[in-house]
């Protein structure tokens, strides 16, 4: 079921979106931005939903990935596509500093990661030589022409981020169905039970943090080359934490397509509706949604909505059967 939804979703994203929106730079750019959020949301969900480690600090990985890639391409002439990967590696390396926090229980892990993210943001602002400080980095190279396709266009960028997100979903899928995935699922509520049958719980958490940081960093790096501009307040902004959390929770606990659909829905509604209604402070809606979901449906809204929908369909069918 879940995998079918994901396949359908990817089908629409690969064929439908370019076909219908391909020549509207504004709309395709909007969907690409939503996919950037989606990428971070998938990475967040891998750690937070599958691994049970709620993080308030993914902005740190996003920022580190962005700056790593930007600096490598600008100062060292590294090709952009290589730099995207290295951006992810950079974020993974930065997550090593957070590893001591893995020993902490859930709420304290969340608080510690929040503090780490603040530290990273301050360091990025202070390390002016590397990051351009508060002034920022301008004219970061765009995505290049590759195999005859110009990925520097809005549509080209869209295809790249879509590929990145797809790769992440495939990774998520394989981790979830592996024995590692089973162990992670169980560790959430019964860590002792898993450790006593030989699960190296700490090691699994370390791996999940590395993978999640890598994914977030790569997406951050993509974003840097997509918008060609960085400043610490932007690259390390809490937005990169808040949007993905809302998207991942909205999309549904441990579902594959959830974080992506959640991100598309939330980002597009925010940009197309609320930003127009409330020019300043439209993220208020995000807060309302987050609070509302935690109280009403902590395992996600999308599954509830789809359930309602499929039940209606089933009811209709039953109705038709009776008529026939």
């Amino acid at each position, binding site marked *: 079921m879940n995998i079918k939804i994901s396949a359908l979703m990817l089908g629409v994203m690969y064929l439908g979106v370019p076909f219908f929106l391909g020549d509207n730079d504004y709309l395709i750019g909007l969907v690409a931005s939503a996919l950037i959020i989606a990428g971070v949301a998938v990475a967040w969900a891998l750690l937070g939903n599958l691994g049970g480690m709620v993080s308030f600090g993914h902005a740190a990985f996003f920022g580190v990935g962005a700056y790593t890639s930007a600096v490598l391409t600008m100062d060292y002439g590294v090709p952009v596509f290589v730099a995207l990967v290295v951006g992810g590696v950079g974020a993974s390396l930065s997550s090593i500093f957070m590893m001591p926090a893995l020993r902490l229980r859930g709420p304290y892990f969340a608080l510690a990661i929040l503090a780490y993210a603040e530290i990273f943001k301050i360091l990025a602002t202070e390390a002016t030589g590397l990051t351009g400080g508060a002034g920022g980095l301008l004219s970061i190279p765009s995505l290049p022409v590759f195999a005859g396709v110009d990925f520097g266009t809005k549509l080209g960028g869209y295809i790249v981020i879509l590929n990145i997100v797809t790769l992440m979903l495939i990774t998520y899928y394989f981790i979830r169905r592996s024995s590692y995935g089973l162990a992670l699922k169980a560790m959430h509520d019964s860590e002792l039970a*898993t450790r006593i049958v*030989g699960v*190296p719980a700490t090691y699994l958490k370390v791996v999940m943090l590395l993978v999640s940081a890598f994914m977030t960093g790569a997406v951050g790096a993509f974003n840097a080359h997509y918008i060609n501009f960085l400043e610490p307040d932007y690259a390390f902004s809490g937005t990169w934490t808040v949007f993905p959390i809302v998207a991942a929770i909205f999309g549904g606990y441990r579902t594959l397509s959830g974080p992506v659909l959640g991100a598309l829905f939330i980002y597009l509604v925010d940009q197309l509706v609320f930003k127009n209604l409330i020019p300043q402070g439209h993220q208020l809606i995000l807060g309302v949604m987050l609070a509302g979901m935690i109280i009403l449906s902590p395992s996600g809204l999308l599954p509830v909505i789809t359930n309602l929908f499929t039940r209606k369909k089933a009811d209709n069918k039953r109705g038709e059967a009776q008529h026939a």
Partner: protein
Amino acid sequence: MLKVENLSVNFGGVRALQDVSFEVQTHEVLGLVGPNGAGKTTSFNVLSGTVRPTAGSVTYEGHDILKSSMHQRVTFGIGRTFQIPQPMHELSVRENLIVAQRFGRPDGKVKQERIDEILESVNLLHKAEADAATELALTERKALEVAKALATEPTLLMLDEVLAGLETTSKKLFMQTLKNIREKYSLSMIVIEHDIETIMNMCDRVVVFNFGKVIADGDPEETFRNPEVVRSYTGEVPA
């Protein structure tokens, strides 16, 4: 194969174990008895790695296991159950055993036939797809507890009151199951149990705990005739 020497554990002011020593030979079934709070579970906790002792040493087949992490000890062949069953949440019974096989065996291989065989031997095969944390009755939870430990393919199996709380018939059946398992996989065992009859039935030797100390160690029949042992029992445990 297992050698426990001069083990002590303090919890704040509570001296849960004081200078405890005992051994388990290959293929032996050792019973641990003693009143509530005597330190039996704490001994298991030290052996399996959930509690760090204040002093003492433990060697298992030549490994100084106190230095090893919890999961390493499992791959050395030490498996245990908990007094309060600890199913892995959000997984089915079968998935519980898959995780135990995958991570508990040194080579990390998962063998479905082996899992079925274990489920069969503890009478859980019909519940293989049930949710482990929510859909099992007490006896089944205890059976899963044993099955999980077996799935790690231990050489030493430590059972913490797996028979307690069962009514007489299921107790007898489950005891027979355990004896069969022991034969089949030629295990060594340490069994914590209050019921003297069970101990006599299952164990080759007993170690008696009282107030964190070993007060007797020997043949079950002789030991239960020892006046000090009788006193610790009648004095501490309401019948």
